[in-house]
């Protein structure tokens, strides 16, 4: 990254409310993300973490508030336009495409021109091959590049989807529970993978697993009932009595 962009604003979620016929999944929620930052969002079930992701990528439209990415309001853009601006999300349940090979999954993600008539050709365009191989290496799936993604183990699927999100070249990666269903060893590898993204990418991670959050050593935003509750380091958040009451107390 160029210059000393210490606190260059990338994303700002500003007073966003999502109303599911009376139930406010997000209730005037605000947060900001700086370029190159890794941030973890935690909160008890139903706090609105996944809805936050849904809203940023345009799957759910807010009834109030604004989402500003690189200075542009994106809350009304079509989904593919939001991806085009540089935001990509990994879903909670692995969203790999099971009947495609691992390599084809990544090639699909790495495609630069996604209009349908540009797909009338075979193979991976030359200029996208390097990105695909790089993504394969990043998640150590090179040796399984030609198997159907549906036959991968659960952890491998999670990594493949992270690699797909990376391969889109998105600046902002939303990783919704990247360690769901993983054991401690796999969780550590996932943390290494995310840390390895360095400061070229901005990463928003949603997770429950506090040991994973500690390994990321990133600032934490705590959500509760669709609202912002607290922000700080892992230690600060742990020590906060309000946070303990709504969240950590239930899971300890």
């Amino acid at each position, binding site marked *: 990254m160029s210059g000393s962009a210490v606190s260059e604003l990338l994303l700002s979620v500003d007073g966003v409310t999502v109303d599911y016929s009376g139930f406010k999944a997000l209730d005037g929620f605000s947060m900001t993300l700086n370029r190159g930052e890794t941030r973890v969002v935690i909160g008890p079930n139903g706090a609105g973490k996944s809805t936050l992701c849904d809203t940023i*990528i345009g*799957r759910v439209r807010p009834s109030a508030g604004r989402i500003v990415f690189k200075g542009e309001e994106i809350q009304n853009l*079509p*989904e*593919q336009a939001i*991806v*085009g601006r540089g935001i*990509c*999300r990994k*879903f909670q349940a692995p*969203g*790999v*495409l*099971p*009947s*495609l090979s691992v390599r*084809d999954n990544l*090639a*699909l*993600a790495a*495609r630069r021109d*996604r*209009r*349908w008539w540009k*797909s*009338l*050709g*075979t*193979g991976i365009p030359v200029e996208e091959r390097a990105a695909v191989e790089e993504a394969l290496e990043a998640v150590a799936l090179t040796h399984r590049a030609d198997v159907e993604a549906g036959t991968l183990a659960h952890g491998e699927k999670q990594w493949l989807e992270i690699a*797909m999100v990376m391969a*889109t070249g998105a600046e902002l990666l939303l990783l919704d529970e990247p360690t769901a269903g993983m054991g401690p060893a796999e969780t550590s590898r996932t943390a290494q993978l995310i840390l390895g993204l360095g400061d070229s990418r901005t990463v928003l991670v949603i997770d429950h697993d506090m040991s994973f959050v500690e390994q990321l050593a990133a600032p934490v935003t705590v959500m509760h009932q669709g609202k912002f509750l607290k922000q700080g380091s892992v230690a600060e958040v742990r020590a906060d009595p309000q946070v303990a009451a709504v969240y950590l107390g239930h899971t300890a």
Partner: protein
Amino acid sequence: MPDFSALTARFAPVKPLLPWLLLALALVAPFALSSYDLNLLARFMAMGILALGLVLIWGHGGILSLGQGVFFGLGGYAIAIHMKLADLPDGEIPDFMVWSGRESLPIWWEPFTSPLFTLAAIVIIPTLAGALFSWAVFHRRVGGTYFALITQALSLAFATLIISRQDVTGGFNGLTDFYSIFGVGLASPGTGSALYWVTLAVLCVAFIALRWLLASRFGILLRASRDGENRVRFLGYNPTPFKVAAFAIAAMLAGVGGALFTLHAGVVSPALIGVVPSIEMVVWVAIGGRYSLAGAIVGALLVNLARDAVSSAFPELWLYLMGALFIFVVTLLPRGLAGLAKGKAA
């Protein structure tokens, strides 16, 4: 579930040869079959062209259409109208119009006098109809079972429309009694086998083109949106144009198949394109194998061959038999007959 793996293993080495074997048989057929049987085979091959389109949209796109009869009919009626007009003495209108009290040709019949217009219409009208219809549905993000139901309603509406406008469509009886195509007498020697060669050529071109398309990035994306439309959408693609393009191609193949079928059968009528025939088209492909182009052709041939044999001996039995076959395939052979050749993938 029974274990077909022994059978599969024995069959597997033959699999790559299967399309070539079929082609060899098709090349020999005109010299080995009577003109009646050749005509029958050509009809079934025309249906095979439609079946290829179903592999594209249903097998690889996950789009179940119970309305392919509509596009089959559009192609069939286009060529039928042309032949009706071509056989007509100057200044006269088809006999069924006279019986229905009409005094002049409907204005939309006129352009079909031109062979060139008719040929273009056979390709363009079903393609355009398929594109517009599927765009209207897919861009509202309606899919799955709902889409299948809408296509079924479409085929019901289409058949009803044709029956109700007897004066311009021939109604329930359809259009029949054709004597010539592009100046060549249908009964003259050699016409039957020439039309057979045309049908075989179209089938081969469609097969090769679809094989390429399914292996292309387009085919990959089609399978991807079948398996995870949301994932595809949130990788930055708009799946709608891909699905619309696939549906339009399938509609085009159905239309071309319908036109060729009409040439061979000498008739097009609502009974060939309505709700039940549209379901039967899906059954051919389910039996042959909806993921396999060669399988779908084999399915169309075998099922229609069986239909011809059974329904001439026991007319009432056929629907039951087809239902039973369908249930057998869906429960035991989800990949159809082609699944037997597919290898051991569970």
